[in-house]
């Protein structure tokens, strides 16, 4: 290998450059588009150097689009708010339910314990529409269709397995000896759980929460089926945007940027735990 070292390094650099271009170009291009006017976007050949405009973002944030056909209301900020609300509340509920369960599976061997744990895991792999289509009929009867409560409940299907299995791994990695000693001192299991186990698994719990937030944010199909426009998150809202008449391309690009920025920022922040989250706790980065 030593003889061809120079050539090898050049080829490797070229390959990595191609990889970077392929994976970053779409995002970079949409960023450019989001700062262009409709006229600039429609010019061929496409421009890389242009006078940027903030009009697209301003229109989305003010909620009013001025078009040739008149003013148009854009509920995009509402979609953004829905995304924040649905993802945050779902993750909070998942942590509340999932962390104690993860502790139980990690620390106790009990009848049906593994069965329950695997049942919860299997939700991650069932086709979502199998459940969603009948559920949409039930939700109409229960008065849960198009409510935040109903959506947050269904979002548990993605958040709970993730949190349960990642946090379980962290509880298993922490030695139970410390808790054991603490309990021998006469403290209740509850104090051992809240004072010893949770702080020890703290980073894992935080990471699992962040990842569950990203996956909840990126979910599309739940709200598509169970919510109408005023409860829909950005993923569904942005799509409705494309088909709305009179919407300009730059505004779609700006809406895409506002939709993906939160998860991209969180992902960069949580990158250390991403491998673990993506493999549901089976591989560590």
């Amino acid at each position, binding site marked *: *290998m030593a003889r061809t070292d120079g050539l090898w390094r050049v080829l490797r650099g070229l*390959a990595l450059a191609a*990889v970077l271009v392929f*994976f*970053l170009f779409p*995002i970079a291009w*949409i960023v450019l*588009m989001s700062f262009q006017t409709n006229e600039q*976007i429609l010019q061929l050949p*496409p421009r890389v150097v242009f006078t940027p405009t903030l009009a697209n973002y301003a229109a989305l944030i003010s909620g009013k689009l001025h078009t040739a056909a008149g003013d148009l209301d854009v509920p995009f900020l509402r979609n953004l708010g829905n995304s924040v609300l649905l993802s945050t509340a779902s993750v909070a509920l998942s942590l509340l*339910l999932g962390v*104690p*369960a993860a502790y*139980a599976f990690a*620390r106790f*061997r009990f009848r049906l314990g593994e069965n329950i744990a695997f*049942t919860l895991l299997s*939700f991650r*792999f069932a*086709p*979502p*529409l*199998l459940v969603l*289509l*009948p559920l949409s*009929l*039930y939700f109409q009867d229960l008065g849960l269709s198009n409510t935040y409560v109903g959506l947050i*409940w*269904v979002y*548990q*299907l993605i958040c709970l397995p993730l949190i349960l299995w990642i946090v379980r*791994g962290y509880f298993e*990695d922490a*030695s*139970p*000896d410390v*808790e054991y000693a603490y309990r021998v001192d006469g403290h209740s*299991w509850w104090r051992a759980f809240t004072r010893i186990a949770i702080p020890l698994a703290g980073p894992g719990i935080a990471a699992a929460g962040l990842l569950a937030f*990203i996956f909840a*944010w*990126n979910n*599309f*199909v739940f709200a598509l089926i169970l919510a109408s426009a005023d409860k829909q998150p950005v*993923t569904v809202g942005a799509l409705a945007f494309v088909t709305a008449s009179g919407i300009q*391309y730059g505004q779609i690009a700006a809406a*895409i940027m506002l*939709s*993906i920025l939160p998860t*991209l920022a*969180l*992902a960069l922040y949580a*990158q250390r735990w991403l*491998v673990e989250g993506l*493999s*549901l*706790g*089976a*591989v*560590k*980065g």
Partner: protein
Amino acid sequence: MAEIPDIAAAPPARAGMRALPYLLSLPALLVCIGILVPFGTAAWYSLQRYNLAMPYLRGFVGWAQYLDLFTDPSFWQTVKVSAIYTGATVGVELVLGLAIALLLRERSWFNNFVSVALLLPLMTAPAIAALMFKLMTNPNFGVLSWIIGKFGATDFRWASAPSSAMFTVVLVDVWVYTPFMMILLLAGLRSLPQQPFEAARLDGVPARFVFFRITLPMLTPYIVTASLFRLLDSIQQFDIIYAMTQGGPGDSLLVFQVRAYLEFFQYTNVGLSAALMMVLWAITYALSNLFIKQWLKLRERTHGAH
């Protein structure tokens, strides 16, 4: 597993302690049980003639619905399209992901930068990713259309032509999910023991031999787990295809979930859509059993210290 000390039994055991693990885990299960009910309902619907537009015709038909389904060419079109989509995405993502992981194997600031940059597509919502490519392949101003036009492909119509629609959605899937493969395989590569590679280097073993006889076999558990994981998700793909073309043009992209969605909401055929979903469920159930076995092996390797 057997060595986990049972701390419930260690301090003075009380009857209440025995119920504790159930009390801790049942709320999580109960919340999800509510979601299991619709699963049973779907199974029941799949045995019925049930169209929301014609409620008076509703009735139990047993397996007839499945028999109709299996003799319907449009069902086999769905099977075919799903198989092509799944095979193409997982195949391309595995090869590309493995190649990139091998390139990034050494830890250096540049390699770390590339692997972090590749997280961005993966963290983009798939439905939004489809939207991004929709803008970029627009025939009037799309930059990708313009680029391939420069190379002479002026009549390539991306997602709006039946011949290239599959290519377009596979491209989006590859853009989003190749980093998933890359990231898991890179973690696997970096966790491999170094001795075999050092020994091979000292002995002057050729690189090709090292790759096929050492790297690949040692990496197999990671490759199998990551591929099965992607297989399970890919065969259920909905977001990218729905956001791009809603299954069109024609029936060229009607994969299982998109077709079930359209049967339900466009043709209000609840029974047929439930039967379609049951078929998909049977496939994913078999695959997920395979996957969980592999996944548990890896998990034990990672958390197996105790």
